[in-house]
């Protein structure tokens, strides 16, 4: 009874109301996960974790231990990348490698936001904020941890923004796409010609990408290496049980720990700062400019190319896989029920996954 009395008292002392605000934010994340089905695998553990770490008497618990064991050393995001790599089918970009250009173009928002954020933050902080635009939680965690370490007050906001915007792809992207394309452009049909992709190509692809990216941006090798290792497990054809484990059990297990552990950064003193709002705003900005970058390059190619590209597929060059690809496909169907953009948009989306990891590596190379 005495402990209860003391803890309730703590809630009303030394900015205790801020903890209550954090409980409400935690509850909001849980609500969005359950009721709105927004990235529930991450938002639900994060919401619950946000409530736990803001209980007054909780200072150094098991969550802090998990944070040191899995996020401080970037282990969880890297292991998760094995699972993601095992889930991805690179077939669409192996059939049409040119689609990868849009993946590169859609990283524009990251670098532009880096410059914008540098007006308010230090360069390493600005770089970590820019990477929110990748719409790739694990990459954001790895870059922020490497550049800012555990002691930074803004890593929590960066991680929350990265995962929230991943979940908000169906809300954020359609208005930007509509704003930047004409009805005529959205109606462009792109017949899909499935090219024959040999098994050897599928096996060599992850190895070659790792070598090329490792030579140009060595800092990306951790992220890309794990992603491609996962893909090699999938494509080699002799490790099906490992591939299935990576896709399902491993990815799910790490996601559980990752979500709840990220929440350790959501303590009231770190999270309820004016900087958090600015970070959320800049993250959204990065996301919008990434989408715009992909669309603009598609429009540019259309000026010179005889075979017209539907510029909407450029928007799928962000890393939020497969949400962004599906959003573009659905928008195409809405404009014209016979316009099937799925294979193209998923191809661009997959290349966005590769490009965002390379962008993360490049940012680390610039800053470290």
């Amino acid at each position, binding site marked *: 009874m005495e402990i209860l009395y003391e803890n309730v008292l703590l809630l009303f002392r030394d900015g205790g109301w801020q903890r209550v605000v954090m409980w409400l934010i935690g509850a909001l994340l849980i609500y969005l996960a359950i009721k709105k089905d927004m990235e529930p695998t991450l938002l639900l553990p994060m919401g619950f974790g946000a409530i736990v770490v803001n209980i007054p008497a909780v200072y150094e618990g098991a969550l802090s231990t998990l944070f040191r064991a899995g996020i401080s050393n970037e282990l969880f995001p890297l292991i998760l990348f094995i699972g993601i790599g095992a889930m991805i089918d690179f077939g669409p970009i192996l059939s049409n490698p040119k689609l*990868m250009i849009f993946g590169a173009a859609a990283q524009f928002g990251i670098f532009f936001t880096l410059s914008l954020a540098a007006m308010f933050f230090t360069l390493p902080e600005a770089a970590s904020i820019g990477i929110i635009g990748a719409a790739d939680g694990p990459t954001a965690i790895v870059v922020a941890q490497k550049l800012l370490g555990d002691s930074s007050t803004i890593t929590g906001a960066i991680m929350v923004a990265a995962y929230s915007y991943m979940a908000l792809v169906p809300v954020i992207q359609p208005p930007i796409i509509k704003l930047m394309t004409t009805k005529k452009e959205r109606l462009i049909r792109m017949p899909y010609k499935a090219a024959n992709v*040999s098994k050897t190509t599928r096996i060599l692809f992850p190895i070659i990408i790792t070598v090329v990216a490792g030579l140009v*941006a060595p800092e990306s090798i951790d992220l890309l290496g794990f992603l491609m290792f996962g893909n090699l497990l999938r494509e080699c054809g002799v490790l099906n049980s490992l591939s299935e484990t990576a896709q399902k059990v491993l990815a799910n297990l790490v996601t559980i720990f990752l979500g709840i552990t990220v929440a350790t950064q959501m303590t009231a003193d770190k999270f309820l700062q004016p900087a958090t709002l600015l970070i959320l705003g800049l993250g959204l900005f990065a996301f919008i400019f990434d989408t715009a970058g992909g669309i603009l390059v598609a429009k540019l190619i259309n000026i010179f190319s005889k075979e017209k590209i539907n510029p909407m597929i450029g928007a799928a060059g962000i890393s939020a896989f497969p949400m962004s690809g599906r959003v573009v496909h659905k928008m195409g169907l809405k404009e014209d029920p016979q316009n099937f953009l799925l294979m193209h948009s998923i191809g661009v989306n997959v290349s966005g996954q590769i490009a965002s990891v390379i962008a993360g590596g490049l940012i680390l190379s610039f800053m470290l």
Partner: protein
Amino acid sequence: MNLLENFSLERFVSSLRYMWQGMICIFVVIGVIILATILMNTLCNKADEKRLQKDNENEQE
């Protein structure tokens, strides 16, 4: 952290170099990957065709 105190337009201008350097680098890396993929597709498809031709010849024999 006082955001307004930290505000610096100079930092924005000086950090623009990361933007163009980053975009050039990413296009170069992706360009190399595209070329490598096209090359790989061509070589592997040719090898597959040859193997198929050999198999057919062996079957006919």
